[in-house]
């Protein structure tokens, strides 16, 4: 499938979504006062986009998101690989990981406000905590998926532990890690906005919360739509990265050949 055909399909999918969002309130399935039709939401979005406040808010959100994601990703990959590669460490850390992982980062809000207040620090704590696990689990599954013959080959040629991580373990885990990155990117984004919503650090979440508490329904949905659009952009970016780093992988090369 060519790039442009792909784009065409994607746009068609979005158009369908728009049509549904327009039709549902118009046909009276839900009250249009509480869920305005798509056209009205897009109108409100157009109005919002023209305000400077939105762009500062967006900047704050994306800044916090990117930083949090980067920290979470790097630490998770590092820790994940170390846990998998050092014998015995996985067994030792398993119970703790399984215990800490489901603790909702939302429940850490008091701790976050205590440590950092309504600042970037709080947002980061929540974002990093939530995104970290997403990547870590993917790394752990990916590392465990190393082909035995490939690993034997590496070992018999006397590749050091580090070389094996770099040349065998890492490429095997990469597809998993890319999925982890996509998951974590979304979760980090969600948490950035949630933190802004709940703690009140400045950003898109705060704007949503303001619109909500002001009863500005169309504006609220406009901002939500904006969040969704950002999600699409982020995904495109990760996909592009994926095409570069996973060119050899069946999931990517399959699309090129057939």
């Amino acid at each position, binding site marked *: 499938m060519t790039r442009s055909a792909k784009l065409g399909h994607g746009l068609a999918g979005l158009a369908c979504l728009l049509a549904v969002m327009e039709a549902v309130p118009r046909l009276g399935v839900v*009250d249009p006062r509480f869920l305005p039709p798509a056209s009205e939401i897009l109108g409100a979005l157009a109005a919002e986009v023209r305000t400077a406040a939105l762009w500062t808010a967006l900047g704050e959100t994306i800044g916090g998101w990117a930083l949090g994601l980067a920290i979470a990703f790097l630490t998770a990959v590092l820790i994940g690989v170390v846990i998998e590669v050092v014998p015995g460490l996985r067994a030792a850390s398993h119970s703790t990981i399984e215990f800490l992982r489901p603790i909702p980062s939302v429940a850490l809000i008091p701790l976050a*406000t205590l*440590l950092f*207040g309504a*600042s970037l620090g709080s947002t980061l704590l929540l974002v990093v905590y939530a995104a970290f696990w997403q990547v870590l689990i993917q790394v752990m599954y990916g590392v465990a998926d190393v082909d035995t013959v490939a690993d034997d080959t590496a070992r018999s040629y006397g590749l050091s532990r580090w070389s094996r991580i770099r040349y065998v373990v890492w490429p095997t885990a990469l597809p998993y890690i890319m999925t982890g990155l996509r998951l974590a990117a979304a979760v980090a984004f969600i948490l950035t906005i949630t933190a802004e919503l709940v703690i009140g650090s400045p950003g898109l979440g705060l704007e949503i*919360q*303001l619109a909500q*508490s002001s*009863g500005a*329904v169309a504006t609220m949905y406009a901002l939500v739509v904006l969040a969704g659009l950002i999600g699409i952009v982020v995904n495109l970016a990760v996909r592009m990265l994926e095409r570069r780093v996973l060119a050899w992988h069946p999931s990517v090369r399959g699309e090129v050949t057939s």
Partner: protein
Amino acid sequence: GSGSSEGAGGKDKVTAGVIAIVDTAPIHLGKAKGFFDKQNIELAITPVQGGAAGISGAVGGQFQFAFGNVTSLLTAKEQGLPIKVVANGVSSTGEEGKDFSAVLVKEDSPIKTAKDLAGKKVSVNQLKNIGDTTIRASVRKAGGDPSQVTFVELPFPDAPAALQAGRVDAIWVVEPFVSQAISQGARPVAWNYADAAPNLTVATYFTTTKTDPDLVKRFTAAMNESLRYADAHPDEARDILKSYTKIDPAVIAKIVLPKWTTDINRESIQAIADAALGDGVLKQKADLGTLLP
């Protein structure tokens, strides 16, 4: 610590954690009018999501001052948090039909008065807070059995839709949702703030015991001036809403403003505390002496 630091021109840099709702117009207006500058305070207002977040932030040292409703403050005090009220926040107008908080039902609902709320499902924004306490007061006052009311949590913005969809029998909301819901065909059956106590103090500004007393004094002065000014100039108060909320200007023109008085009504707070104790929201008899100035 007090966290305040010397800003430019020898001013104290102060951060206040304040919910971005109609109630807090005075502090925004006061800041715009320069009342805080006049007291050598360089004020930064940080929006927070709710009273609890304000209290956490103040105790955690992120804010020197914050805004919270009296039930939240009483609860926090009961748990031993070192907080202290410094100025009145917002008060009920005390007039039924012209207050900024109401319990609403659908137009065709069989519920006619607060008494009929018994046995029904009523939404409040937070359970075990000022909403259920004051609504129970309304029901009691109208001769109903307050213990028969079922409360569910529903954020103010989502309540009107739930009411129209018949998911709840009645909703409690504050402005701008009161005006909005009424314009969408809802009917008020109780004015819970007005019913709970005369001239009810709903929320106050507070600080922690660690804050420099001199700074507190100056903040109180500036805040009181702001409250007086806002109360005296409702049009300017409505105007300032446009700067920090996203309420539709058409709605802003219509909403009922609360009463912004400098008077902290100790009796009304005591009444709320007693009612909360009766309902089990509080566990001990409140000691207002250390909470209020």
